[in-house]
């Protein structure tokens, strides 16, 4: 054999090395009992939680899980990119009901993996909004509920002889009595998806809805205009909300309350753990909870964080086993213990409520009521794009660029066109 390396040999060897490098991860995966998952994180406790879940799952089933953690916004962007590329990089995704309609054709339906009795274990509102209304396919399975109650400064309220607001009018009255000297009575988000959820709450409370019986936009009804006007006035007219809230999302809201600047906030179940922890809250022991406010109705968003199966996955059976484990009883109990995430399983929720005592029991019952009365925006074709349109429409009204009526009317016209193009009326 000649020691000289010919050009042909060099090219052939280079091609072999390149092909080997590209194929290596797939070969390695094919030879092991391993699945991959892209999972949600947020805060220092999540990595430990997922580590434990994955360890326990592997010990129980022998299936290894290689996973990456991302916070909600980058996770959503990554799932969008991977779905568009029809990637099989991950078998399992953490997801959320907020944009689920975008993924109806990319997440594998979970119907056949869960029996009717298993599905009946979960809160109906969660399962309902994870289904494709056209096909009935279940795009994901709820892992924990994301509903809100009122968190307020019990020490300050007591000092001023106030009770937490129950109605819109009381919210303004109480807020006005608390605002001053660098403090505000309330904080609400004013940007993006959190603003849309807040508007949803107020829209339903005012007696309106997103679409009418024919699925045509109806959020610009009298109720919708009243809801957005009330929302804007909290910031611009009554000034009981910091003016910067126009650019706030959930994190800023929570920080305003936990730092002691603001005296009331509508927050999700995880806030209970954050506010009780001296490392993340300056108001430990100085707050309490109350039901969400109401107007004509007592309705607010009840949505869920969920787990989905990638339609491109080549290991669907193993991936579904993992998904089932993450929404199973042990995982839901652990979630509640670590982050006070409200279980999506009705049985586990009842169990934790029964075991809870004092303020925690009260808070859990309030959450349960919110979820029982909860709703979500429709999962019609094109509604994800309508949501982004609404982000801008709501922000324009909140920052006083246009009137709530003009903003909603303009958005309704554009929303109908978007849904028509997307095939919502076909």
């Amino acid at each position, binding site marked *: 054999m000649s020691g000289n390396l010919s050009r042909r040999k060099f090219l052939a060897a280079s091609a072999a090395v390149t092909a080997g490098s590209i194929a290596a991860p797939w070969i390695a995966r094919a030879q092991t009992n391993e699945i991959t998952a892209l999972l949600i994180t947020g805060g220092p406790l999540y990595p430990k939680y997922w580590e434990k879940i994955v360890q326990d799952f592997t010990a129980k089933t022998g299936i290894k899980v290689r996973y990456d953690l991302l916070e909600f916004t980058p996770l959503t962007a990554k799932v969008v990119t991977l779905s568009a590329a029809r990637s099989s990089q991950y078998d399992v995704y953490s997801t959320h009901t907020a944009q689920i309609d975008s993924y109806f054709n990319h997440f594998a339906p979970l119907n056949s993996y869960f029996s009717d009795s298993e599905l009946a274990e979960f809160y109906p509102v969660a399962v309902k909004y994870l289904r494709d209304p056209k096909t009935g396919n279940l795009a994901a399975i709820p892992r924990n509920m994301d509903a809100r109650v009122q968190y307020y400064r019990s020490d300050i309220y007591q000092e001023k002889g106030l009770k937490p607001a129950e109605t819109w009018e009381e919210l303004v009255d109480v807020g006005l009595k608390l605002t001053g000297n660098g403090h505000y009575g309330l904080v609400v988000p004013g940007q993006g998806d959190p603003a849309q959820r807040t508007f949803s709450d107020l829209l339903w409370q005012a007696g309106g809805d997103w679409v009418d019986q024919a699925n045509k936009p109806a959020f610009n009804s009298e109720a919708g205009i009243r809801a957005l006007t009330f929302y804007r006035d909290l910031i611009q007219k009554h000034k009981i909300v910091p003016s910067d809230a126009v650019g706030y999302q959930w994190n800023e809201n929570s920080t305003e309350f936990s730092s002691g600047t603001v005296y009331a906030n509508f927050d999700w179940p995880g806030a209970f753990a954050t506010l009780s922890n001296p490392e993340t809250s300056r108001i430990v022991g100085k707050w309490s909870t109350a039901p969400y406010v109401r107007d004509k109705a007592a309705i607010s968003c009840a949505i869920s964080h969920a787990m989905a199966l990638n339609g491109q996955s080549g290991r669907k059976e193993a991936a579904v086993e993992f998904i089932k484990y993450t929404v199973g009883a042990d995982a839901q109990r652990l979630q509640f213990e670590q982050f006070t995430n409200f279980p999506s399983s009705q049985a586990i929720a009842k169990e934790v409520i029964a075991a809870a005592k004092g303020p925690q029991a009260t808070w859990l019952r309030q959450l349960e009521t919110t979820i029982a009365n909860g709703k979500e925006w429709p999962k019609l074709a094109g509604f994800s794009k309508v949501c982004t349109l609404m982000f801008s429409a709501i*922000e324009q009204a*909140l920052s006083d660029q246009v009137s709530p009526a003009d903003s909603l009317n303009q958005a309704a016209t554009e929303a109908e066109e978007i849904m028509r193009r997307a095939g919502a009326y076909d």
Partner: protein
Amino acid sequence: MSAVAQHQAPGRRRRSPLPYTWQRGYLLASPALLVMLAILVYPLGYSFIMSFFRWDLSGSAPFIGTGNYSDELFGRQFNQALRNQTIFSVVSITIEVVAGMAIAVLVNGKLRGMRLARTLLLVPPMIAPAVVGLNFRWLFNTQYGLVDALLRMFNLPDIPWLNHPAWALVSVIVADVWQNTPLMVLLFLAGLQSLPQEPLEAATVDGATPWQRFWHIVLPLMRPVIMIALMLRIIDTFRTFDVVWLMTQGGPGGATNLLTVYSYLLAFQAVDFGHAAAVSYIALGMSLFVLGLLYGVPWLIAKRRAI
């Protein structure tokens, strides 16, 4: 390759349109060219094709011709983004070039402390735009920000920097100017230091004032450097994203939506890749058009003068 084939190679080389050394050069460069094709040309071409389809995650992607382009060009949100982009680019580039030139002339002098000033000028361009965005977000916060705190110290009213549509656009321009003016200074400084001294000395002997020397000698000689600076900034402002995203996410209500931010929102929030690709290509077309004007108009004028 066999010995016979190797002996025949010169005969074949004569028939090839490329010399043998070129062929070998292309062969050796081919891996790099393939990588370039894969990571640069392919995505560009793919996204261009995507812009002619209704491309979301719904499963089907019908061809709709220039539908995405016409939707956007006549759409309210695109036109708002286009207006913001125009204001952002024109105002920030104008301030950066004028202020950059003024500071460059100043630090080019032999005043005390100028060496330190030149070193400090390197700091803003070295900071990641994401960090700049976060810093300015807090500086301009009405409740906790330093800027409004200073205003309060002088009994001046708070300015809703990031909450009012007009002030929000001003805020992102300020952040961009802060980060990019030093870059202009450095470019202009390099230009100023390479200028021939004879015309300036002759003008001084003839009694020209400093302003006359600057206006009639320095500025015309600096024209090539200014053109490069303008070109860099035009390209850069059309792809500004990080600072705006971290300061306002394009809000409030789209008041600071630039074309890049709008395209991102379409792709990753509305999950509408067809429209997002169309917006990106309109932005690319616009920046090429502006650059064409920048270089084409002086060239045409010079050509007409020559005729």
